[in-house]
């Protein structure tokens, strides 16, 4: 939709101005952003990719070693596990967050009491720092949940899930969901409010019950919003760092180490060029996801 408007309105000045020169002041408006951007993001990006083909450790001499880093990265179990963990975690989180946020949004747009107060409460996690809330949850998972587990006699809860390599990821999903549901929820509320009320009237005249209305009418009508939420969420979860550092610090062992953490930790132990190869691979995957994202957005505009 925005693309169409841009072409139409963007066309207006074209007719008038294409004969005139650009007023120099416009360069002054544009260049600070473009120049800073080039220095702060493009340049480091290029430098990083360059060094991924060397054996640099971050300082001192280095030599070109071609694709050695990439070949090594492909057979490095630490890197493969972190990629697998990050994708699995992102997938589970994106599904959990969207299902919960959608249901909450349906509830929050229904005829309920304390509507604004409840909305206000549900948005709070969005304004809290990820690492700090992760510290709070770490305390709850390590101390309070096991204490409650033994008090209630539930053996499953008696040991902390964070110290179990097979379950620690679940804690990260819970905290990430806790923090990112608000943003997703707000987008769903906007989507649900945009659905005209009379389609429900028509549906109920045709004898559709509540659940049928939700699945057959509401869901298809807000599909565009589902697409936005899934895309934005997945992108964020792939870069997960703060919450994991605060909650498990990648542990137990390296069972919950995300790609971001692998890159940073590797660098801190002297693997500059090698981790730049990982970062470059990660970047390529991000680009592929971006392309999928673009085609999906085109689908959304058609809706």
């Amino acid at each position, binding site marked *: 939709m*925005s693309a169409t408007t*841009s072409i139409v*309105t*963007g066309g207006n*000045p*074209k007719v008038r101005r294409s004969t005139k020169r650009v007023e120099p*002041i*416009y*360069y002054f*408006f*544009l260049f*600070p*952003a*473009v120049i*800073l*951007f080039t220095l*702060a993001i493009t*340049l480091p*990006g290029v*430098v990083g990719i360059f*060094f991924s083909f060397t054996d640099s450790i971050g300082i001192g001499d280095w030599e070109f070693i071609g694709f050695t880093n990439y070949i090594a990265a492909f057979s490095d179990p630490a890197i493969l596990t972190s990629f697998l963990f990050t994708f699995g975690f992102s997938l589970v989180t994106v599904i959990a967050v969207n299902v919960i946020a959608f249901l*909450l949004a349906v*509830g929050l*747009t229904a*005829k309920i009491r304390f509507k604004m107060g409840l909305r206000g*409460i549900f*948005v*709070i996690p*969005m*304004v809290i*720092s990820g690492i*700090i*809330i992760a*510290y*709070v949850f770490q*305390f709850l998972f390590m101390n309070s949940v096991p*204490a409650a587990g033994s008090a209630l006699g539930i053996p499953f809860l008696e040991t902390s899930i964070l110290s179990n390599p097979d379950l620690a990821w679940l804690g990260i999903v819970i905290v990430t969901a*806790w923090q990112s549901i608000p943003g997703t929820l*707000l*987008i769903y509320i*906007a989507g649900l409010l945009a659905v005209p*009320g009379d389609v*429900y*009237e028509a549906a109920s*005249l045709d004898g559709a019950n509540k659940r049928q*209305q939700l699945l057959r009418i509401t869901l298809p009508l807000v599909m565009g919003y589902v697409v*936005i939420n899934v895309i934005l969420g997945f992108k964020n979860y792939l*870069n997960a*760092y703060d919450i994991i*550092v*605060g909650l498990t610090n990648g542990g137990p062992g390296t069972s919950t180490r995300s*790609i*971001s953490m692998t*890159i*940073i930790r590797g*660098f801190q132990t002297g693997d*500059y060029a090698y*981790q*730049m190869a990982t970062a470059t691979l990660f970047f390529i995957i*991000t680009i592929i996801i971006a392309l999928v994202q673009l085609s999906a957005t085109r689908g959304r505009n058609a809706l």
Partner: protein
Amino acid sequence: MATPTVLSTQSITTANATPKQRTRGERVSWSTTIILLLCAVTVLLPLYVTISMAFKTDTQSVDGNAFSLPAPFSIDGFVQAWTLTKFPVGFAMSLLVTAGTVVATIILASFAAYAIVRNWDRRLFRFSFFYLLAAMFIPFPVVALPQIQLTGRVGLDNPFGVIILATMFQLSFSVLLFTAFLRSIPIELEESARIDGASTWQTFWRLIFPLLAPMSATVGIFAFLYAWNDFMMPSLIISDAGLQTLPVRQNLFQTQFSSNYNVAFASYLMAMAPAIIAYLFAQRWVMSGVTQGAVKG
């Protein structure tokens, strides 16, 4: 004969029952309200624990019962946290980084968006738009390592370096929002100002920038939440621990002082509070801003 009557009565009742959710003056769904209130408890519980732990004494904070109310009520945790984390310095650093990022993002992004929209027919400006937008797909971890090195080399391994980098990572999204909004402003509005003899610079500041206010609020809210809460970037870029922002300072309680729970939670609370208080005052703005941002972006 009976069937149609039944059907029509049924449809009338359901027709009355279902839109009840949406239109005014109808039955409140208490079951939904109760379920949502229970869900709200899961949001509030961690916050309740943070607050109650923060006001406990040293001894009570280690008794293993996180959900009890503080008895006696103590502000000892805050006093210790204040000096341990050097709260005033941390607060000043967080404030500097946040204010710098918010202001720089709004100004640079609105400048660039204005130039781009008004010169859309020029290849340079069109190209710049897509160039700036491309960064939406470059996450910080991908370029973090060279950025750590380069900021160190040019003496920007401090809060100012974080301001620049944070602004650049906010830029794509913000330029996108501003350009979308600027395109909806009719050019005639601007032409009348120019007829009155205003230069482009004056037109921008007197006419365009005030018109952009709602978008600036959205852009500012996103920049604020990112800059105030971020841990990864400042922890990696700022090399002097004395200049760290509040979220990074909290790792003190993971390494040393790890069993001084009341102190740790008091410190967490002090770091969270400014954003929560700001949110309580600007609730409507935050909600509409986030929605606008996501839907337009």
